[in-house]
Every structure is written in structure tokens, then in C-alpha cells.
């Protein structure tokens, strides 16, 4: 007897008892549905958080200078010198302040970033038009500004802002560039911003020194080395006072996130395992009933030449088809449920083929494991006993 014939016979017997088959499969269906839907939502959440973290820039290190009074604050020159550390691709010292920016009658209150030319690359902004800050602007304390896309449309709703002037806390700055929209992240909108040369910002806000340094590392595997070099250089600068600075590693955040998702996946796997186990026991139960009910059929089949193996395979295929069908239904319902949840909760969902395949194979496996005992019981029936059964 070949497999196709067996599957055909199994389907026939399953369809012959629709309600019972459905109830039998219910355990598997619920288990697989839960796995598919929860994994899709979990992966969606992970993906959106990861995307937000990564939108800050890839391989990004953030150095916060807390300082120790005014004397120990890092100057722009000292900060820029850290760029010579091996593995550093871009380095952008920055100061963040808030100010009111006016253009004609329009006025907005936005964050003012004072930085250098690398800031564009480090934070992964792109220019929509004009140019970005350059080193020469810093050297000559140029009063120029680059506007975030939203700030640009707020201040200049009609015209092209490039070449126009804005007033930041009363000083006139010439707009030389506009950034492309980047969207918002966990830290707020990335498009409501005005960028000016670091030196001009120091003068404007009468603040000395750099508070934040963004460092982009060229290769991922150099991150740890760069962190170590940065820390030793800063330690030297602040004479061993490690409280004066802090180096944040973005990949640390991502790996923390990974471990959280890992724990979640294990918990999820446990729940799924338990529900599939329960489903499997349900299948075994019904298969045992089915073997008893069909004792005479087994006897007839054996009398006309079915071997033990034939009967075993017949019942195994039946429980596999039953559980596999449950798996397929569960996958379908799970995908539907995740879609619905994502629409209602406005959450991102990710479906991976791996999970779908694993869920399907696992449910078939459940059929094999829990079908083995009843199938073996059927196969071991003696033909005369089975034929005598009424």
C-alpha cells in the first residue's frame, strides 16, 4: 500500500466524521493559532523597536560628557581629536539647546543642534536640498543654518528657504540647506530641528564645551575596541574620574532587546508546547476510540492480506493527516488573527516562513508521536479476534 493511497483513505475516514474530527483537531488548532499569532505580533514589536533604535544610526556610540565643573568640559578641539582613534568612521561633537526660531511672521520653538559636518552621516540624515555644515563654517563661526524638513515647512510654508534668513534668539542665520524627512523615533521627531555650526552655537548660547559626541564605528566588530579606546582617552582627560563621562553603545541596547525577545520566545514556546501536548493527547484518545470502533474493519483487512505494517501505516497516516490538517487550519487562523490584531491595535506583525513550517511540521510530528500507540494497538490485533468482534 503506498502513501498516496493511505492519505486518500485517511481523508475519507476523517471527512466521514466531520464534527468529531474537528473537535479532535481543536487542541492542535488552538495551539498552532496561538503560536503563529503571538510570534507574528512579538516579531513585529521587536522589529519596530529595533528599527527605532537603528534609526539613530548604525554602529553608533554616544558619549555623554557630564563634566566636573566648567574646567573639565571637553572643548570642540579635544572632542574632534578623538576622531583619530582607529575604527572611528565619523565623529560629531554636538550641543543641544532649545530656542525660538523666527522667519518673518512665522515662529517656532525647536531644538538647536550645534555640530560639525559628520553629524549628517552619523545620524543618518539626508539632504533634501542645499548643503550641510562644513568644517570651514566651524572655523569661521559662520552664522548659517540647516533646517529639518518639518521646521522648514513651518517657517517657510510657501517658498524655498535656501538663501533666506532666520532669527535664532535674535541673531540672523542664513539657511543653506534643508534635510530630507526621517520620521520620528523614540526620542521624538527627527524633523523638527535646526542645525548650526558647533562654534556658532557655543557663542550663541554662551556655553563652552561639548556635551555629547556621536561616534560612528566603521565595522561592527570594532565597536568594543573603539569603546575601550574612547574610555581610556576620556579617562586620561578627566584624570581617572569615570563619573565625568559615559559611553553608550547602541548594540548594548539591541542585545538587551534581543535577550528580552529571547526570553519571550522561550515562554511562548513553552505555552505552545503545552497546548500541542494537550492537542496530541486528544488525538490519541480519539484514535484509540477509532481503533476499537473499527476492530472489525481491521480484521477484514488483515484477513484479505494486510500486514501489520499496512495497518500501522494506515492509522499513523490518519493521525498525521488529522494533526497536520489541524496545523494548517491553525496556521490560517493564526495569520488571520494576527492581521486582525495588528489592524485593531495598530501593531506591526511579521510572518516568517520558518515559523509557519516549524508549526506545520511540529503538528504532523505530534500526529506521529500520539498516533503511534493507537496504530500499534490496531496493528497487533489478531485477525480471528478482530473478525469475531461485533
Amino acid at each position, binding site marked *: *500500500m*503506498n502513501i498516496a*493511497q493511505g492519505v486518500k483513505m485517511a481523508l*475519507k*475516514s476523517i471527512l*466521514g466524521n466531520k464534527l468529531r474530527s474537528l473537535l479532535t483537531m481543536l487542541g492542535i488548532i488552538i495551539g498552532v493559532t496561538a503560536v503563529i499569532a503571538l510570534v507574528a505580533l512579538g516579531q513585529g514589536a521587536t522589529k519596530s523597536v529595533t528599527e527605532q533604535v537603528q534609526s539613530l544610526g548604525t554602529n553608533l556610540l554616544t558619549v555623554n560628557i557630564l563634566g566636573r565643573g566648567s574646567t573639565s568640559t571637553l572643548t570642540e578641539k579635544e572632542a574632534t581629536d578623538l576622531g583619530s582613534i582607529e575604527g572611528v568612521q565619523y565623529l560629531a561633537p554636538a550641543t543641544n539647546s532649545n530656542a525660538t526660531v523666527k522667519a518673518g511672521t512665522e515662529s517656532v520653538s525647536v531644538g538647536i543642534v550645534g555640530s560639525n559636518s559628520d553629524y549628517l552621516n552619523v545620524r543618518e540624515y539626508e539632504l533634501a536640498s542645499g548643503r550641510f555644515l562644513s568644517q570651514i563654517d566651524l572655523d569661521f563661526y559662520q552664522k548659517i543654518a540647516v533646517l529639518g524638513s518639518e521646521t522648514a515647512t513651518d517657517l517657510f510654508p510657501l517658498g524655498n528657504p535656501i538663501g533666506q534668513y532666520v532669527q535664532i534668539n535674535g541673531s540672523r542665520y542664513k539657511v543653506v540647506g534643508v534635510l530630507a524627512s526621517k520620521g520620528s523615533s523614540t526620542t521624538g521627531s527627527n524633523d523638527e530641528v535646526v542645525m548650526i555650526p558647533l562654534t556658532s552655537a557655543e557663542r550663541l548660547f554662551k556655553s563652552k564645551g561639548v556635551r555629547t559626541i556621536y561616534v560612528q564605528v566603521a565595522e561592527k566588530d570594532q565597536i568594543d575596541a573603539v569603546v575601550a579606546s574612547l574610555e581610556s582617552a576620556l579617562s586620561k582627560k578627566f584624570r581617572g574620574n569615570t563619573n565625568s563621562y559615559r559611553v553608550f553603545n547602541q548594540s548594548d541596547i539591541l542585545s538587551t532587546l534581543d535577550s528580552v525577545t529571547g526570553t519571550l520566545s522561550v515562554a511562548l514556546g513553552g505555552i505552545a508546547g503545552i497546548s500541542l501536548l494537550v492537542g496530541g493527547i486528544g488525538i490519541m484518545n480519539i484514535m484509540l476510540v477509532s481503533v476499537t470502533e473499527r476492530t*472489525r*474493519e481491521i*480484521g*477484514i*483487512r*488483515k*484477513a*484479505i*492480506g*494486510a*500486514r*501489520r*505494517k*499496512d495497518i500501522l501505516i494506515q492509522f499513523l497516516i490518519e493521525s498525521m493527516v488529522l494533526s497536520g490538517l489541524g496545523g494548517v487550519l491553525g496556521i490560517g487562523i493564526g495569520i488571520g488573527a494576527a492581521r486582525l490584531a495588528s489592524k485593531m491595535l495598530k501593531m506591526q506583525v511579521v510572518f516568517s516562513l520558518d515559523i509557519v513550517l516549524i508549526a506545520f511540521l511540529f503538528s504532523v510530528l505530534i500526529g506521529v508521536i500520539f498516533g503511534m500507540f493507537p496504530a500499534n494497538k490496531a496493528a497487533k490485533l489478531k*485477525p*480471528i479476534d478482530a*473478525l469475531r468482534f461485533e
Partner: protein
Amino acid sequence: MADKTGPLIRIEGLSKLYQMGGETLKALNDVSLTVNYGDFVAIIGPSGSGKSTLMNVIGCLDSASSGNYWLDGEEISKLRENKLADIRNRKIGFIFQGFNLLPKLTAIENVELPLIYRGVHARERRERAIEALRKVGLEERIHHKPSELSGGQQQRVAIARALAGNPPMLLADEPTGALDTKTSKEVMGLIRELNELGHTIVLITHDLEISRQAKRVVRIQDGRLSEEGRPA
């Protein structure tokens, strides 16, 4: 089939013992029987005579406690279960009292069943099943389920199933037991016809009337056989 030399069935000194509450019951007591190819033997005996046990042993559904049994040249009393299944499939066509058709399968699917277990390919299987159903005059009803057929028709499907594998022996256990007189006659007519076509037939019955239609009658009583000889 009928042209083969030597007997189809040769049973020598066969016994079957049952343990029942500490007592040993001899269901078959030193039985010997020879059936030639093309023969039509009726084994007749009252209930409790060991008739069913003999039928189970001849049909390879049960094994004997001692003695030898050759079927179609093969010694089978020592064979294991899987080998016996193979022998049942190839050498024996069963016709049961209660028809024993699978209720969820159509007539042709029932007839195909032994061929499925023999590993015959779908197309050939179908052809042979249709051929067998034609022999019993049911080619019009091949897609009917047993519940849609009369008792006589069901028994004819069962006979077709027995014929489909083209076994050397047809083993009929009270084939008319569940049928009325008229259909009994039809079915027995069909069995006689099959014998004339060369099929060897072993018929188990308790009915003298039925046994008279056989070429040879063997009586069984208390686990022992006695030949009644051939009716003229």
C-alpha cells in the same frame, strides 16, 4: 490452476488445543485432509465441532498447535504473522457469512482491497476489479456502497473480492448463512460455476442441503474428520 500436480491442501496430524479454565480442549484432534486442485469440498459439522477452528487454520488466520499444513506447495504451519498475511493475500479468497465488506467503500473499492495490499498498480487494479465484478454479474453497480446493495449482491461483491487476487483457493464460511432461500440458490449456483471454471473451493457449512452441492463432503465431529465420500 487445475492442471497443477499434487494436492492444493495437505494437512497431516494437525491438532489445535485451547486452555480453558485449567482443562485442555482439543478443538482439532489429529486431523488429516487432502484437497486437490479444482476440487469442491464441503466441510460439514454442527456448531462446536471444531469446524470454525479448522476454517481458521485452513484460512491461515490461526496457527495449529501441532502438525503440518502445506498450502499450494508451501509448508505454512510454522510461518510468522507477516508471512501468513502474504499467504492469505495470494493464495486464499475469503467468502464470509456476514459478507464482511467495508461499509464506507464502494463495491469496486472493496474488490480492489486485496490488490492494494499486494501492491498492484492503480490501473491494473481497477481493470482486475472490474473483471471480477463482471464475473459475478455486478458490473452495473461498481460504484454502489454495500448499504445500497441487497444481501445477495453484497455476497457477490464479496465473492468478486475473493476472486480479484486470483487465488488458488476460495474459502467460503457459511456463504449463504445470512441469505434467504432464493438468493442462497443464486449464490451457490455462482460458486458451482466458479468451480466449473477451475477454482478450488472449500466450503464450511452446517447445512446438509448446501453440502450436497459439493463434489466431496467431509464431516467433522468433536475435532475429528471423517470422509463421507463423493456423492455420485
